[in-house]
């Protein structure tokens, strides 16, 4: 047990029953810490169920600004008898177990090596509130109060938070404050040891925002100029279009006519959703859909059509744990292979990998440009962890001078100047032809879009040479894509080591932390974070420049490594996979441990994380 007080470095986990309103109380706790300027990460671990099953909320506070998950619970707040046995077990030796002691704790829950704080939550609620719904809701606020006192969270932060939360319903503020106070007072009156963890105001999160990736994607689609969204509900992607709708209602209604500059359709399934997107983009609009694994599987045929007929489309895949229905409320990065090579025949798709809410916003907006520039589907691969959990992020930015890059489009005036329009003619040598919007010109520019083989003039063809020219041009286009997609993030100005780490998406969080851990263990690695597929030359150069590259992924089959090897012919032996695929966000410990075992430069040291 720690003897001195640890500042801003601990993990609190809440164990609740879902459907009881605990999520917002737990969020309040995390948000309070955020408002104190302290780095905080919250993970909502919920079941694929609506009401009555165990749900958890993990809050990590980190003065070093590590935003990844960390194993080992310092403080467990358990108000769910169903999960209590496993919750007790999950507390670190020396940690704290906070529970409702209205009823006496059964001896089987008692561990010698942890501390127990009982608070008579039910009793207090029954005493204070008559309404059963209030009893349930305020119980959650009371334990937040207790934590507030134990961890010395600033009280006025809550006052602000409640004021924001209940704007327009101000009469709800007082009872919430009161419930919080109940918890605070209970600790004040009953707890007289030194609690080994505390918080202290910092400036880390100043100017930052705390938001989930799905909201950021929805907002990115608004700023990126999407006018049509077609989707089918599926966890964990549903909130992408919900956010789009929310902001569209706010910002996309013509104030004069009251008419919408957008259209959202809840489709009958994912096939139809992508079909609608393709219809809309074919007709010139920017359109997108959001889904998760099963939806991507169903969209294969349409993705192949869009690839071959060269129709833009933006698909946001918020990945969850596969295969099949898998674990719908757990995270993974396991739709990479199917996304990159979706559909039968020789197909390749452009992928984007955001790591933060800000990147969700930016890459979603960028996806619309890219998709129109390249006239092909762009698949944004985010995941449940990024999409549904709140992350501390730099704020969203937008340049008001920014214009959309609509790609190569011939309008009526261009068509006038052209002798013969060839929809699939590679005029510029970059593999990207010109398109026209339906209705553009009375006599020129009309063409037939089809998924069958076509020549440069969009005419149907069964000629082998026509076919070959066309699919080889598509490879040229894919080369062009390498120049247009976002560049990777390098963690060093120039390479310093023979070994390196490569990661993408939410693996960034534990990977960055692992870099530090390894450094502490005497292993300094170069590192790169990939943001897109196809991989651009910088990445190839980086890998070539290293003897060994650890590729961090949250899937079983090393799917990103497969893309690296397939597309660039690296020797697979030099790309060493570090994988986690149990459905929980990967931790720095998992990575550093694995690398310590595998690294040639490993000194006989153990990780002291």
């Amino acid at each position, binding site marked *: 047990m720690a003897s001195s007080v640890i500042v801003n470095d601990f993990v609190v986990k809440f164990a609740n029953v879902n459907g009881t309103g605990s999520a917002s109380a737990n969020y309040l706790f995390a948000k309070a810490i955020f408002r104190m300027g302290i780095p905080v990460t919250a993970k909502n671990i919920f079941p694929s169920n609506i009401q009555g099953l165990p749900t958890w909320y993990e809050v990590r506070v980190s003065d070093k600004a590590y935003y990844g998950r960390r194993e080992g619970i310092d403080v467990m707040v358990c108000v769910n008898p169903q999960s209590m046995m496993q919750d007790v077990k999950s507390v670190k030796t020396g940690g704290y177990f906070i529970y409702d002691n209205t009823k006496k704790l059964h001896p089987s829950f008692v561990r010698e090596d942890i501390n127990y704080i009982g608070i008579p939550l039910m009793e207090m609620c029954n005493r204070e509130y008559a309404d059963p719904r209030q009893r349930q809701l305020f119980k959650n606020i009371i334990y937040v109060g207790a934590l507030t006192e134990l961890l010395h969270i600033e009280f006025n932060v809550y006052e602000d938070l409640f004021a924001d939360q209940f704007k327009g319903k101000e009469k709800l503020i007082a009872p919430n404050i009161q419930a919080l106070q109940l918890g605070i007072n209970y600790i004040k009156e009953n707890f007289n040891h030194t609690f080994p963890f505390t918080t202290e105001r910092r400036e880390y999160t100043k100017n930052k925002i705390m938001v989930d990736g799905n909201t950021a994607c929805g907002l990115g689609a608004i700023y*990126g*100029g999407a*006018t049509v969204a077609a989707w089918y509900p599926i966890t964990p992607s549903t909130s992408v279009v919900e956010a789009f709708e929310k902001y569209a209602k706010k910002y996309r209604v013509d104030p004069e006519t009251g*008419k*919408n500059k957008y259209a959202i*359709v809840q489709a009958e399934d994912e096939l139809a959703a992508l079909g609608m997107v393709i*219809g809309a983009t074919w007709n010139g609009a920017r359109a997108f859909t959001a889904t998760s694994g099963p939806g991507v599987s169903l969209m294969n045929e349409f993705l192949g059509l869009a690839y071959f007929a060269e129709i833009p489309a933006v698909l946001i895949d918020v990945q969850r744990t596969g295969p099949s229905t898998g674990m719908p409320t757990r995270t993974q990065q396991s739709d990479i292979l199917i996304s990159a090579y979706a559909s039968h025949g020789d197909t390749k798709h452009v992928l984007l990998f955001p790591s933060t809410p800000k990147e969700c916003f930016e890459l979603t907006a960028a996806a619309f440009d890219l998709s129109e520039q390249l006239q092909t589907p762009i698949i944004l691969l985010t995941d449940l962890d990024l999409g549904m959990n709140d992350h501390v992020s730099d704020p969203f930015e937008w340049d008001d001078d920014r214009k959309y890059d609509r790609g190569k489009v011939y309008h009526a005036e261009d068509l006038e100047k052209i002798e013969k329009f060839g929809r699939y003619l590679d005029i510029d040598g970059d593999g990207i032809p010109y398109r026209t919007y339906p209705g553009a010109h009375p006599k020129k520019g009309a063409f037939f879009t089809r998924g069958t083989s076509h020549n440069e003039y969009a005419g149907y063809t069964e000629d082998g040479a026509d076919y070959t020219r066309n699919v080889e041009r598509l490879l040229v286009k894919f080369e062009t894509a390498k120049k247009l997609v976002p560049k990777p993030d390098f963690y060093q100005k120039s390479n310093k080591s023979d070994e390196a780490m490569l990661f993408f998406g939410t693996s960034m969080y534990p990977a960055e932390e692992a870099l530090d851990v390894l450094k502490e263990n005497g292993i300094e690695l170069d590192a790169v974070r990939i943001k897109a597929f196809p991989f651009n030359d910088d990445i190839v150069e980086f890998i070539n420049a290293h003897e060994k590259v650890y590729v961090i992924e949250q899937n079983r089959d090393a799917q990103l490594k497969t893309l690296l090897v397939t597309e660039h012919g690296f020797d697979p032996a030099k790309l060493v996979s570090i994988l986690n695929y149990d459905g929980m966000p990967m931790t720095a410990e998992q990575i550093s441990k694995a690398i310590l075992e595998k690294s040639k430069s490993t000194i006989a040291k153990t990780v002291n994380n």
Partner: protein
Amino acid sequence: MTYLRPTFKHPDLPKNSLGYTFKDYEGGLSTLCAGCGHDSISAAIVEACFRQNIAPHKVAKLSGIGCSSKTPTYFLGNSHGFNSVHGRMPSVATGASLVNQDLMYFGVSGDGDSASIGMGQFVHAVRRNINMVYIVMNNGCYGLTKGQDSATADVGSKSKAGSVNIFQPIDFAGLALELGAGFVAQSFSGDKTQLIPLIEAAMNYKGFAFINVISPCVTFNNNVGSTKAYDYVRQHIDATGTIDFVPTHNEIVADYKEGTQTNIKMHDGSYLQFNKLDTDWNPLERDSSFAALQKARNSQEILTGLIYFEQNPTDLNTMLNTTNEKPLHQFSANELSPGSAKLAEVNDDFR
């Protein structure tokens, strides 16, 4: 392989009010089998568009996969066309129709394309009341894959290969009615006189206008024993009388006996003129249309003509309140992006 007709134009070809000749509405030379019903329907579409004075480039034509779905190559060569994937035209048409309300959408499909693989999308396109003309070229079989029974083949109908269908047919008109379609018509590829005005009316309907056209497959399903063969259809057809479409600017000429003519007013002020309508059934009442259809089915007759017409349709764009100020793709970044000031407000919400 698509052959184009010679583009030479006779100077004296008659022109419609927009100045287009009939030729301007034609497409590539058909590669369907000689005598295929689908070609007659293409011809009817050409004729209807010519008569309706629509600029060819203001039409978008969409289809799935099949012989029927190939036809958009054979009409309106100056229109953008989209031969998508099998059974999924409805969704593609839905997406397209959301974007640009200045275009007219023609969806062409087959019975395999719409009644089997595309059934789900068909149902939901009806439900959403997409503003489009939806034509099923219904031959009771899969032409392009060489004649298998489709889901519209009648029980007991015999294919050329000799197999007898055992399954209940899907009745497109009945289904569309049940699903709430506002414009339900049925016709026969061999009956141009009826088909052309029906297409014209459909073009003027602001909502989902559905026409199920029996269209014999001469190669695989025109044999004795097939209920989608030319001979069988001709014998079992029960036409609801002739129909005329009268555009807004035309005068209504009432040269029929009193009591046998009905004029249905379209949303744009034009009229649909029914002559010699079956007296015990009113196409303006859904229950009545249902009953008429049911009666014809029971007596194994094919009721053709305009079966049901809802006078006040609300199409998808109207339901969604989408702007028609201009097509959605014409809005620029500063019309669509709320800008940095608003973004600052959004950021503040997350602090």
